[in-house]
């Protein structure tokens, strides 16, 4: 590990200043991704700015009457465990709780923050090993995963430059529920939809999100959710616990009079960013829930997939996972 300067700050503006004014400064909160990457020399920082004491760890829940737009505000420094165990989150947004609890281990979830989880880096083995080329880590050096070991890699949102999969579970649920992130930077605050916060790799896989220099994620906002009754996060992986998704699906339905009036399907483990399967969602609208319908949604959710040699199984597995998550969402 390369030596770095370490400092704490209790002031958001100061954090933004420090982050924006130095080329190799990094924020550190839970550190569950960053410390790994520092040890691997994948990230070399000159300055770590510890933001754990910034006052942005609150979880606030709002009633529709008093707050028609916003159902919940989750501070960027809220710990994953605190979010997953929060009674109102479990009641109003069970999908988020399930997704968080399906990831990592209790120890990691106790450390990891919501903002850090949004910023989680890919688990692509080539990205994490400085001995080998990687376009994301070293632009232009090549992508050995294409034509190499790619069983765990993405089949959606890929490019000729990068097929690295987005690793988060929580963000898949957040994207399904139309979460927005509040960013604060030298030019002030702005809000973006989480699904748009992430960029597709294209020719620049090193550029992963919309963050501008000095910008910090301060909060995640959720609209009121009509999905609490009918939602399910299903994660398929190689062992029972403590491993990343081969495929995951965050599915949520709003059902009125036996008909689906709103539907959300987001995919994890198969795409370069948390992935909304919009066409599959549309297909469900106005329909009555049935296994056949859900199987069709599964088919549609993966249209346009570009599998590699070793991850072709993810196409079929995604179809089945979506079907099963939808079935589980209606209690089957």
């Amino acid at each position, binding site marked *: *590990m*390369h*030596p770095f300067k370490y400092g704490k700050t209790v002031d958001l503006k100061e954090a933004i200043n420090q982050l924006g004014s130095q080329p190799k400064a990094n924020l550190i909160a839970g550190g569950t991704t960053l410390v790994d990457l520092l040890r691997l*020399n994948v990230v070399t920082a000159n300055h770590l700015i510890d933001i754990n004491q910034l006052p942005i760890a609150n979880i606030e829940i709002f009633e529709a009457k008093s707050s028609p737009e916003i159902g919940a505000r989750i501070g960027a420094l809220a710990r994953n465990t605190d979010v997953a165990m929060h009674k109102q989150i479990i009641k109003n947004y069970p999908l988020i709780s399930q997704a968080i609890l399906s990831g990592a281990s209790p120890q990691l979830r106790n450390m990891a923050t919501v903002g850090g989880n949004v910023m989680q880096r890919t*688990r692509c*083995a*080539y990205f994490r*090993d400085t*001995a*080998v080329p990687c376009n994301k880590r070293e632009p232009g050096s090549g992508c*050995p995963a294409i*034509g*190499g*070991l790619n*069983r765990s890699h993405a089949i959606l949102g890929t490019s000729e430059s990068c097929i690295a999969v987005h690793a988060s579970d929580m963000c898949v649920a957040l994207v399904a529920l139309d979460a927005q992130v509040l960013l604060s930077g030298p030019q002030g605050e702005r809000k973006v939809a989480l699904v748009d916060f992430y960029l597709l790799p294209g020719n620049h896989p090193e550029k992963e999100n919309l963050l501008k220099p000095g910008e910090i994620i301060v909060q995640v906002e959720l609209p009121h959710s009509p999905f609490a009754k009918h939602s399910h996060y299903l994660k*398929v*992986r*190689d*062992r*029972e*616990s*403590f*491993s990343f998704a*081969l495929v995951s699906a965050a599915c949520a339905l709003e059902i009125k009079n036996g008909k689906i009036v709103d539907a959300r399907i987001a995919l994890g483990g198969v795409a370069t960013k948390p992935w909304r399967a919009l066409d599959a969602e549309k297909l469900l609208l106005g329909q009555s829930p049935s296994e056949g319908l859900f199987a069709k949604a599964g088919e549609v959710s993966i249209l346009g997939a570009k599998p590699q040699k*070793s991850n072709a*199984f993810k196409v*079929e*597995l995604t179809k*089945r*996972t979506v*079907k*099963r998550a939808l079935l589980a969402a209606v209690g089957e």
Partner: protein
Amino acid sequence: MAGKIGESEQSAKYVGKAVNRVDGHSKVTGAATYAAEHKIDDLVYAALIQSTIAKGTITKMDTSEAERLPGVKVIITPFNAPRLSSKSTPSGRSLLLLQDKQVQHDRQNIGLVIADTWESASHAASLVKVSYKQTEPQVEIEKHATYEKLKSTTSEIGKQISAAGHKRGDFSQAFASGAHKVDQIYSTPMESHNPMEPFAVIASWEGEHLTLYDTTQAVFATRKTVAEHFDIPESHVRIISPFVGGGFGSKLSTWSHVILAAMAARKVNLPVKLVLSRAQMYGPVGFRPKTIQRILLAADKNGKLTAIRHDNINETSHFEDYVEASTHTTSRMYACPNLITSQNQVALDIGTPTWMRAPGEAPGSFALESAMDELAYELGLDPIELRVRNYPEKDPESGLPWSSNSLRECYKVGAEKFGWHKRNPEPKSMRAGKDLLGWGMAAATYPTYRMAANAQVTILPSGEALVQAGSQDIGTGTYTIMSQVAADTLGLPIEKIKFELGDSTLPRTPLSGGSMTAASVGSAVQLACQTALNSLIKTAIADQVSPLYQAKAESIVARDEGLYLSSDSKKGERLTDIIKRNKLKQVVGKAESKPGNEDEKYSMHSYGAIFAEVKIDSDLVRPKLTRMVGAYGAGKILNLKTARNQMFGGMTFGIGMALMEHTLIDPKLGRIMNADLAEYHLPVNLDVPNLDVIFIDEHDPHINPLGAKGIGEISITGVAAAIANAVYHATGKRIRDLPITIDKIM
């Protein structure tokens, strides 16, 4: 004469019981000192530089930036490394020791930085810029040993190690005329040992004398290898290894980093500590090689095997042969007059493989026991019935009688416990709720090894005994079972036994491998205790004041901290009284215990039967192991608690082998790409269901004085096949390539 444990069951207070680990407290409190934890004055730290390519030549190592870091003392590379002795060919592994600039595998040790802190050393190591002239590596055994080539003839592929094969009868003719046949290819992947404690060593020179605090399964072999490399007498080298945090075979060998640490310590003239990171252990310290195995079975219409052929090919490095002896067990597992086995290697640009828990037996039993399941379906026979019909009444290879063999009882007891009779053999026929339910079984075996071992016992005037043997405790409970043996033999409470091991200055013992420590060292400890007691008995019966004066030595037994007549439990006295009255400083018993010619008279092995249950969601198809029962005939079980613990460990190892373990190499780069415990999957708690272990009450008077067979390795054997057979039963899909993952079942 003091009683032998095997002979006087009723007198055993500790042996055979569930005794707590004598070192348990020190381990859970952190007091147990592992290799890297020894406090040494003036210690400096080394960090390895490893190759990032798999094949080529190092053209330059730019150390200038690294050398400028504060605290860096020296950087050793192939360009400046001290030349090692070329007088003799050192024993042990072929080690790559910075003596040339060739790179022969990924993560080859190509240098080390020594600095006054670990942080400086590892930072400096990352700043050394290495230039290579690269060559395209060959790392895929499949390119050299294709299915088609295997189908034609195995022996033309790779280097055949003919000595390792077996041949009896006329296989070709018998197979040709077989009524029911199986002919399949099975494969197992490269797997990494991943002991919890990483490799670690502290090297300290005093003049021409070297002390190594090392994590090793073999203190004496390490001493020999190190002495030879530095061309100094073995007596000048001391290896200290009181605790080992798992090795699973990887720590049986002295690998290059041990020699390099000693080289570095000599160069800086200070003690050097070198600890490998998890990632640095994927390559230069061994692994289980990938195997490709072809099995042909033929049986008559009654299910009697008429022909067996088992060919194994495994990968090895270009600089050392290694045979994964997958076919060894096959020659004697079933009664069959016609058999051929062969073992072959393909050299690739990888590190050298090594023994990993049940080397040979673990991958070999996956192939053979899967093939037997396939044959059972071919015949329409229950897989247990097929195995029973082919049970060999004596060793079919050597013709020798078994010293003991409880295999049929293992089938019976295991099947009863598992509820096997409720099994519908039809694939996909059983359900657990909506899930497919699969039940599979396999047989297991492992040879009973024993080697010469020494021990020394010192009975002190306090009534305590110090028992010493070089040996190692690799987490299996050696401290505990040796203390039990000593306590029972000496008639002392176990609290009065202090057992010391893990030091090459203690009495010589074999390595901790081949599941033989209990049998080898235990027999020596018992004999040494008897020798010490005999000396005390001699003193007592010559002592006019002793109640045992003029008693016959054979009539005296040791119990309750004293010596007493076996016929009159009140006649006798305490050990301390004899010692005190006769003004003895201490009573010493030394002994060597070694095998005789029993292996010429008997074929000696442990046997077992494993039963596995999997539940599989019909959409998502990941096999979830829900139950496993293993029944074993492994001779005398010395400690029920540590034995069950070791069986659980081995079965869990087998679960990993069956369902997830796989060291992944990039086919073009030759680089291992999952060199950490996040991506190299081992079972987590949720992957391990309730495991049920049954030991058959087996008395074997032939194998060794303790009657113990060893259990470390039979515990993994057969597990992968039992699970694969359960997956077939659940899904109708026969997975012949480990690990059994979702993509393969879909």
